[in-house]
């Protein structure tokens, strides 16, 4: 086992720290570059849509943030499963680190979605099925983070939040379906989001791809940085317990 370098060896905290330290500056720089290029391109150098006018520029924030809001939860689900099955501490801490990033992405998606919809709906908030689903996802994130914060023992917290993440994922999918059922087709949900790509011309599509890449890189860089902090905090916690004992 020692001779064979498996993927799991990166789950060792010390190894994880050593591996990610040189990676982080590059990732951060790349994320910043993609975001600046994509957003400047989108904001300054793309034409207005003939129907939606300049609001089409919101697409460069809304679509990537919405994607990352869901993917962050999905990453937490995978990390929780790895913790429950293989007991890798880094995995549990990565899930904890991803939640605040996911909740921010959800907020960005909510805010930009509401702002984008406002000219069409005539109000700042409408109970559009997609937006409502993101609001529910936001509540799931809040509950998950609150449970982490409430439990003192880190391993117990990791166990219970992982179970919550699993059950929450099932109910999040169920809620998405239920919300569609609850408010079907009252708003033009489909014209708001990713489905639009099909009829979006290349002038919008290419800067959008750059922005998506930027958000993915930003997410990875932030989660790595936050996981490093969580590992340090965990070590600090262990040291403080020992200090109190001695």
């Amino acid at each position, binding site marked *: 086992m020692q001779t064979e370098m498996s993927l799991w060896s990166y789950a060792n905290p010390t190894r994880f720290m050593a591996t990610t330290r040189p990676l982080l500056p590059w990732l951060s720089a790349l994320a910043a570059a993609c975001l600046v290029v994509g957003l400047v391109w989108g904001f300054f150098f793309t034409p207005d849509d003939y129907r939606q006018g300049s609001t089409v520029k919101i697409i460069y924030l809304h679509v990537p943030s919405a994607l990352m809001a869901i993917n962050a939860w999905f990453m937490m689900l995978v990390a929780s499963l790895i913790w429950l099955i293989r007991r890798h501490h880094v995995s549990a801490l990565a899930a904890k680190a991803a939640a605040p990033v996911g909740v921010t992405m959800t907020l960005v998606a909510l805010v930009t979605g509401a702002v984008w919809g406002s000219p069409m709906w005539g109000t700042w908030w409408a109970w559009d099925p997609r937006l409502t689903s993101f609001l529910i996802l936001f509540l799931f994130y809040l509950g998950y983070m609150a449970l982490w914060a*409430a439990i003192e023992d880190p391993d*117990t917290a990791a166990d219970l939040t992982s179970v919550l993440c699993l059950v929450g994922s099932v109910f999040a999918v169920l809620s998405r379906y239920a919300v569609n059922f609850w408010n079907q087709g009252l708003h033009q949900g489909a014209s708001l989001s990713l489905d639009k790509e099909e009829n979006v011309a290349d002038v919008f599509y290419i800067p959008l791809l750059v922005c998506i890449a930027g958000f993915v890189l930003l997410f990875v860089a932030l989660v790595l940085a936050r996981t490093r902090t969580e590992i340090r905090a965990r070590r600090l916690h262990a040291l403080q317990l020992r200090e109190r004992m001695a």
Partner: protein
Amino acid sequence: MIRILSRDVALAVRAGGGFGLSLAFFLIVVVLVPFGVGPETAVLAPIAPGILWLGALLACLLSLDRVFALDREDGALDLLATAPVPLEGVALAKAGAHWLTTGLPLSLAAPFLAVLLGLPAPGHLWLAVSLLVGTPALSLIGTFGAALTVGLKRGGLLLSLLVLPLYVPTLIFGADVARRGAEGLALGPPLALLGAVTAGCVALLPFATAAALRVSLR
């Protein structure tokens, strides 16, 4: 398992508090609504199914933190965990007892409270049916939340924050059944979905609850 259930029901009835309290809370919520939105039947009747479902849901929430907390305080939870019954069975029995002492009485009381809100006649039956089918899911989800927070000192508020988002599908389908019932519309699909949510909760949540309990007991 039956024995755990009947003991919990007996305890709730004997102690008085938990049993009557959620019913009284439900009544108060329903009585307060007209003060908030006005007394006209034209305003009250359309929102009555939603209000009654919401009131029942909040009343369910009220007694959740007692589901495991009392047993933890007096050591019974430790003894149940070491007894020759699976913890999944304990979880199911606890949820069953919670439903018998809150969900069931709430479902039976709801049609009478619906009169106060001017719900049209065919709606009463369907309101009771939707609550009877949906409230078991509320008890099961709530028991899961209670298992997550049983070891915490200030678990009550956190419990609500964890459980309420999980209640969304049940509330949507349940209130939809009640609304369609009141308007005389076809209600097959939402009723089937509501039943499916409850059935799924019965089948899967006791395992999650037991897993959370094992961790909380450590």
